């Protein structure tokens, strides 16, 4: 009896780990090992020591790039919020059919490869593109350069990341009980004060979710800033790519990667402790 009970208990804890074993081994081999390799390279290339970190954390070029990365991520998050909130609001107030139409557009944008969307912004803002054409038609003889500036990369990143923000806010807005708003109105809240004291706090979880997600993705963004941004205002991921591909400076590239990773994990870690990571992408 005692034997069969312990065997049962053993099977109960063993079985799930048996199901998990292939994936665990796989991730250890092809996810953890390469990641550890980056850590090792950061303290051994070209020679052992913390010189790479010293350079990355104190060098003026690196400080500038990291500051620029944070600044851009903050700006993009803010823009996504300014763009996403009104759209989510619009979706939750229009007819069901219109909301479905907008939802379809956002889903389509979300599923379109971000390389395609980056390219589309290149077309839109190019020297012979529609925006310049429109400006010229409106009488601006010499439009300012739009492509390969902070403006072009920011616009494209906002466009690419806005769906994350919109979906997070819209999900929360949809769940707001209309009777709450009505009762607030009946008690004299209207306009700004209704928004500030009732609507905004109710939608705050969606704002937090969306902002964390957009900020974190933006921190590590490689493709869009490299293709559309100004070469003088690089972001961290772009510089890491340069270190590896052009200068073969594996130590410096790895040290920068680890700094980027630690910052990302700290933000996600704080989020995870408060809300749970699985909610972020749900």
């Amino acid at each position, binding site marked *: 009896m005692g034997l069969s009970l312990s065997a049962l208990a053993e099977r109960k804890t063993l079985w799930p780990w048996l199901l998990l074993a292939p994936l665990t081994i796989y991730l250890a081999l092809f996810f953890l090992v390469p*990641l550890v390799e980056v850590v090792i390279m950061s303290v051994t290339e070209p020679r052992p020591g913390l010189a790479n970190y010293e350079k990355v954390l104190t060098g003026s070029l690196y400080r500038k790039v990291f500051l620029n990365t944070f600044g851009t991520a903050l700006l993009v998050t803010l823009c996504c919020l300014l763009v996403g909130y009104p759209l989510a609001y619009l979706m939750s107030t229009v007819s069901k059919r219109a909301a479905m139409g907008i939802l379809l557009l956002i889903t389509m944008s979300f599923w379109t490869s971000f*390389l395609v969307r980056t390219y589309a912004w290149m077309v839109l803002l190019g020297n012979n593109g529609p925006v310049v054409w429109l400006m010229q038609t409106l009488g601006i003889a010499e439009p300012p350069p739009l492509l390969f500036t902070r403006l072009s990369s920011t616009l494209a990143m906002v466009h690419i990341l806005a769906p994350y923000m919109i979906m997070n806010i819209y999900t929360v807005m949809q769940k707001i009980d209309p009777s709450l708003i009505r009762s607030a109105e009946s008690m004299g809240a209207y306009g700004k004060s209704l928004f500030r004291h009732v609507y905004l706090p109710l939608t705050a979880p969606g704002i937090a979710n969306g902002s964390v997600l957009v900020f974190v993705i933006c921190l590590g963004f490689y493709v869009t800033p490299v293709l559309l941004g100004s070469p003088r205002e690089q972001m961290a991921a772009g510089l890491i790519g340069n270190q*590896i591909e052009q200068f073969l400076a594996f130590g410096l590239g790895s040290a920068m990667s680890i700094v980027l990773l630690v910052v990302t994990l700290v933000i996600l870690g704080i989020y995870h402790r408060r809300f749970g990571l699985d909610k972020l992408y749900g």
Partner: protein
Amino acid sequence: MNTLMRWIGIAVVIFIAAPLVIVVPMSFSTAASLQFPPPGYSWGYYQQFFSDPSWLRPAWNSIYIATMNTLLTMALVVPATFALVRHKFWGKSFANLMMMMPMAVPHIVMAVGYYSYFGELKLVHSKLGVVLAHTCLSVPITFLVLSANLKGFDLTLERAARSLGATPGQVFRHITLPILKPGLAISALFAFIQSFDETVVAIFISGRDAETLPRKMFDSIREEADPVIAVISTLLFAVVFAGLIVPSLIKGLRRMAGGTPSK
């Protein structure tokens, strides 16, 4: 306040739609560079894409890699998801976190790791290397989609089958699998797209031999902004459009044919 928000909302709709709409006319352009409005329209760049091996090869590579990635990801993630959703065991929250980790690490960091690790294993510039890397990156999203499906699974159905004398194998084949089919299909689709769209790791490890479509597009945009990219963009866009529109059209048709009002 309300009207202002609404007007901004409408402006945002245009902001989101414009880049998606613009590539379509550009793909039919006769101009050699990106020019708007196009001076004329033709199929020229479509012909160029479908006859140029330097574009077709990466396209096939991407389809092959994404397919292999999907098979491998599903083989690993399906059992793991069953364990995590249906069992309580020691170390469960750790296992949950482990599944999500590849999503938390910026792709550029993984790219650096794979570049050096696969260099040692002689896996750079090989399709196998890209498949192995992409599978890690596909785990979180596939797991999320599948576990959401599995959580909604009504266990009483399985219990009923068991009580009627079905063996565990029969229950799995005749009850669990058929009910989970849509969920499995969608999570497989997510794995496929994750790999098909993945750019950063592919740029660093795919090389010339296993060059994927996103890598080729990235290089091409960086160098010359070849208008053929507008063709690929339009084609990819059309696939997404079809994938989203066709199911709802079928649903609508079914509703009309069946005569049952939607609920």
